[in-house]
């Protein structure tokens, strides 16, 4: 169980990005984080992970999330990474083994094998030596997914993994994520394409500055809740 108590994130300029978040998230499955632009979806994830200054408590299996750092993977929006960085596909995937290696230890045969297997799973065999800047958006996103697979974390957070990604890559990624969820991983994904919500997610969290609704997609993803989340009257154009 991932428990979130009174989570609040305030920007440095004093504006509240998110407040009053209280959730008891059940483990397993893929959960979509849905909301309009500027609703605080990314901030929600970063607040949970402690990447932005936040108030409140986040506990997983009864312990603070910082205790589970090695069991936590976060794939942020890929545009935040430097594509000119001197690293190829293989070594980028291999980075996923670093957290569990500890200081002074180099990745060995076991880690390299895991990286190779993950590259095969995302369908990038033959591109191991490509510098990451020479990949398409979809290929690079698959590299990041392979890295996440190698990390072997129980909690996985993804921020808009399908932005700038081709249909083929998107299909490969969602199938792999579904497979990971079946193996017992808990996955959260910030997502904006409403047309695919029912197909991709068993559960959803609807967010707009606070949590509007959380639950099974078929129960919570209703017209009423969506109207509340994407309230047109919140739009400055209508006021």
């Amino acid at each position: 169980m991932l428990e979130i108590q009174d989570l609040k994130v305030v920007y440095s300029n004093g504006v509240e990005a998110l407040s009053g978040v209280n959730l008891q998230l059940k483990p397993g499955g893929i959960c979509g984080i849905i909301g309009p632009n500027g609703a605080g979806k990314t901030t929600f994830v970063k607040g949970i992970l402690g990447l932005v200054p936040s108030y409140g408590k986040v506990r997983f299996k009864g312990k603070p999330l910082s205790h589970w750092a090695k069991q936590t993977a976060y794939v942020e929006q890929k545009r935040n990474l430097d594509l000119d960085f001197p690293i190829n596909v293989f070594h980028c995937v291999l980075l996923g083994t670093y957290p569990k290696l500890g200081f002074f230890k180099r990745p060995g045969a076991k880690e390299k094998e895991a990286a190779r297997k993950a590259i095969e799973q995302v369908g990038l065999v033959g591109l191991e030596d490509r510098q990451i800047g020479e990949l398409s958006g979809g290929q690079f996103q698959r590299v990041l997914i392979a890295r996440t697979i190698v990390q072997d974390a129980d909690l996985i957070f993804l921020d808009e993994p399908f932005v700038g990604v081709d249909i083929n890559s998107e299909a490969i990624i969602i199938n792999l994520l579904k497979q990971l969820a079946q193996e017992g991983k808990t996955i959260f994904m910030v997502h904006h394409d409403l047309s695919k919500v029912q197909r991709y997610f068993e559960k959803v969290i609807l967010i707009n500055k606070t949590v509007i609704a959380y639950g099974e997609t078929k129960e919570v993803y209703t017209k009423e809740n969506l109207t509340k989340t994407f309230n047109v009257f919140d739009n400055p154009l209508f006021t």
Partner: protein
Amino acid sequence: MGEALHTFINDLIEYPFLQQALSISLILGIACGMVGCFIVLRGLALMGDAISHAVLPGVALSYILNISYFFGAVVFGIMAALGISFVQHHSKIKVDSAIGIVFSAFLALGILMVTKIQSAINLNNILFGNVLTITPSDRILTIVVAIIVIAAIFLFFKELQLSTFDPVMAETSGLSVKLINYMLMLLLTLITVVSLQTVGVILVVSLLITPASTAFLLTKSLKSMLWVSALIGAASAAIGLFFSVTYNLPSGVVIVLTATIIFLTVFLLHPKTGLLWQFLTKSRSKIA
């Protein structure tokens, strides 16, 4: 040129001070080249510049207190690094302005101190470096510091790589990115301070940035970037020293210009990305 090289090698065999100057230049070229890779990849070139300028008051103070210049310089280098991040985090001032404010203030203070205390410090040597006047104790210090810096990069390669490429993943998976940043700043300060005598305050940033940038153009992995940068750093130092001794020129200036020539050669002639080839293909396609 062949004759000059011959004389240089003969001098090298004959004069221990020249051997020492060469060994120091080589090890500094290697260490600066390696630290420089992380400085270049993290976009911290200005930070290196700031720290190198900011150590000057420390050098003057060390002279007044009659202690090794090293300690004063390191303290002021660290103060500058902390001062910059303090100004940046406690106001809306952007990092390049914070760097500009802090380093010029420290440099001005340093020049004031050096000129007013009528010391035996030769401002020219601090500003531009002279590897031939290095004392035996400073030589040992330089070698020890350079070895520590190189060893730290080897030992923490994984952490430095991950936190440079993807600090967010590093942070979420439990690595203290802040701690790694502080370590890198410390390594940067240490190597800058011991490089002062060789290349001087003004030019040390070049030894950090130019070989690493050249290697960045040439390589596709961080490991090879580190090796190539170290090699270019060492080569620049050795070639620079040769010209410095042969034509009686300040060592720092010549080392920096050598590194720059290597950079320009790669920048223009690199088989894939070289500016010259790009220009030629463009004009050829125009003609066609």
